[in-house]
């Protein structure tokens, strides 16, 4: 019996209290670093085992599945686990200097502890096979992210965190209602068992009103969490005012995990053959397209670049849900792949933002003047991230966008293809504004103090991300393999 699935969550979960035992920020950082690297290692092992020998399951407490809580890893959540732990393994070395500057030293041990709890929560959501356990870990990750955002250096971080708290709690309560209704229909909380009971008792085909409501609530609740277009209001502020590390971490993991939950509930519980999916596709399609166009346009008019990237995140989430709404094999694999690629590029872009705010102190567009010469490595990384965001060939962003376009062509949705391309053009515009300011605007002569390159501990993780963005753009075999396996799995019912 392999204990890998439980170790994945337990390591960060139990390292979190360890962080605050000594009340020393260096020890806390070191504990957090070890824990994230260990869980990254575990997720690599899990991914390898899943690719080799199929899904893993683990009965916690020794109780078999519908009675106890089980962990169930297939290629979909193995992939999500890899994304989450990989990003956090890069974010933690980055955190050391960045957090030192941004957070009150007395709060730093608590900061790392909360970060680990948040990581454990996200991993717990991704790995569990139990609906209510998912809710508990969702709350775990949300609660810690509210506090983490609230620790941001500016006072608007507090209001952003409060807003996120209210909207997140409403979302979580909606999910709780949905899970309760599902439970009342089936008498079970295990996702596979719920699906089995629904099919065995012929609840799915009969147009059961409770089932419909349960799904409506779960979808709305998750849309709040993943910031689907009209419900995205919390996201720009939260990403803009959070500490740099938290923006990197949340932008590249939290929304992905929410999307994973949506995939799990829609495809694994109801199954692919029912009428449900069609309605889900129709519901999600319009918001996704609106997200791509509207948020990209809004992003163009932002002067705070972190905020601009936050709006761009909403647009990218639109691409992912667009792939989801196609509900065919290529659309789904494009969506899953884009989860991975978006994590890579947004992680990279927010890392450059963190470096700029570390050296310059703010990330307004005007502060970027001349940065191309003063911070060549950071701005170089920004350009790579930007290219990836636009979907230029040889970068990671290209692969998934290309797959998305192919999927749309397959369905004959030419208008959607055009909208995707317009979205990319808009991305070119908003990235170009920054590049132009950084490289082509003259330096202000008045600025006496020298702004230098960011320290190495920020640059190394950043350039690792750059390499990842380019590597997975050229050789995308592994993630594509994962994404396609996961899509097959989702469409094949359980």
């Amino acid at each position, binding site marked *: 019996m392999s204990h890998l699935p439980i170790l994945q969550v337990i390591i960060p979960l139990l390292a979190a209290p360890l962080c605050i035992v000594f009340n020393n920020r260096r020890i806390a950082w070191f504990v957090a670093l070890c824990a994230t690297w260990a869980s990254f290692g575990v997720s690599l092992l899990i991914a390898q085992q899943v690719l080799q020998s199929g899904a893993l399951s683990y009965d916690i407490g020794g109780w078999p599945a519908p009675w106890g809580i089980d962990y169930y890893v297939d290629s979909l959540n193995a992939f999500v686990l890899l994304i989450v732990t990989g990003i956090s393994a890069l974010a933690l070395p980055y955190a050391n200097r960045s957090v030192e500057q941004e957070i009150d030293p007395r709060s730093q041990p608590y900061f790392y502890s909360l970060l680990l709890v948040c990581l454990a929560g996200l991993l717990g959501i991704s790995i569990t096979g139990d609906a209510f356990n998912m809710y508990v870990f969702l709350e775990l990750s949300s609660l810690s992210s509210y506090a983490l955002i609230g620790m941001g250096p500016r006072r608007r971080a507090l209001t952003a965190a409060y807003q996120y*708290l209210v909207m997140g709690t409403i979302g979580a309560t909606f999910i709780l209602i949905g899970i*309760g209704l599902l439970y009342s229909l089936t008498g079970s909380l295990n996702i596979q068992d719920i699906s089995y009971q629904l099919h065995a008792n012929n609840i799915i085909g009969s147009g059961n009103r409770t089932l419909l409501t349960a799904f409506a609530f779960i979808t709305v609740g998750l849309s709040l969490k993943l910031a689907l277009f009209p419900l995205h209001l919390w996201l720009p502020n939260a990403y803009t005012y959070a500490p740099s590390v938290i923006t990197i971490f949340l932008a590249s993991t939290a929304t992905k995990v929410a999307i994973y939950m949506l995939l799990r509930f829609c495809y694994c519980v109801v199954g692919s053959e029912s009428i449900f999916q069609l309605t889900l596709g129709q519901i999600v399609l319009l918001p996704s397209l609106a997200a791509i166009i509207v948020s990209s346009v809004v992003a163009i008019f932002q002067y705070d670049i972190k905020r601009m990237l936050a709006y761009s995140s909403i647009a990218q989430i639109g691409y992912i849900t667009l792939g989801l709404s196609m509900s065919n094999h290529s659309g789904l694999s494009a969506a899953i792949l884009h989860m991975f690629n978006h994590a890579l590029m947004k992680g990279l872009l927010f890392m450059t933002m963190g470096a700029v705010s570390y050296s310059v102190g703010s990330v307004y567009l005007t502060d970027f003047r001349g940065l191309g010469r003063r911070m060549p490595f950071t701005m170089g990384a920004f350009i790579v991230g930007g290219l990836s965001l636009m979907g230029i060939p040889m970068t990671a962003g290209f692969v998934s966008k290309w797959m998305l376009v192919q999927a749309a062509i397959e369905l004959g949705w030419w208008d959607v293809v055009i909208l995707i391309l317009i979205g990319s053009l808009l991305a070119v515009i908003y990235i170009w504004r920054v590049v132009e300011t950084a490289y082509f605007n003259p330096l202000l002569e008045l600025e006496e103090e020298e702004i230098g390159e960011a320290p190495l501990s920020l640059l190394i993780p950043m350039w690792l991300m750059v390499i990842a963005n380019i590597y997975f753009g050229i050789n995308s075999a592994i993630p594509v393999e994962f994404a396609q396996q996961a899509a097959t799995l989702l469409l094949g019912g359980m």
Partner: protein
Amino acid sequence: MSWVGHYNYWVAIFLMMSGFYVVISRGNLIKKLIGLNVFSTSVFLLYISMGKIFGGTAPIINEHSQKFQLFSNPIPHVLILTAIVVGVATTAVGLALTVRINERYGTIEEDEIRAKDDSL
């Protein structure tokens, strides 16, 4: 009319929606948290209502309950125990944020906060 038997759920839904209304319509940060509390407590009511069996008793097996032989469902109870804890944790974090907001802005009314942010 079988749906008359749903009154318990419906009242729970009414309570939930009142709480939800407070959350989204009120501008005061503490009032919003009060609304959130009402909202979640009413969801607990919905859950516990699902677990109830008429003529059943609390799921504790002892000499008193042996004569009933019919126990209400313990699972919703367990779930709600966890959810209550989550609720109080969220309230606490929300209040901490409220206190900090009040210190930095001098107010806990949403529109005044927005006005202060915009004036910068």
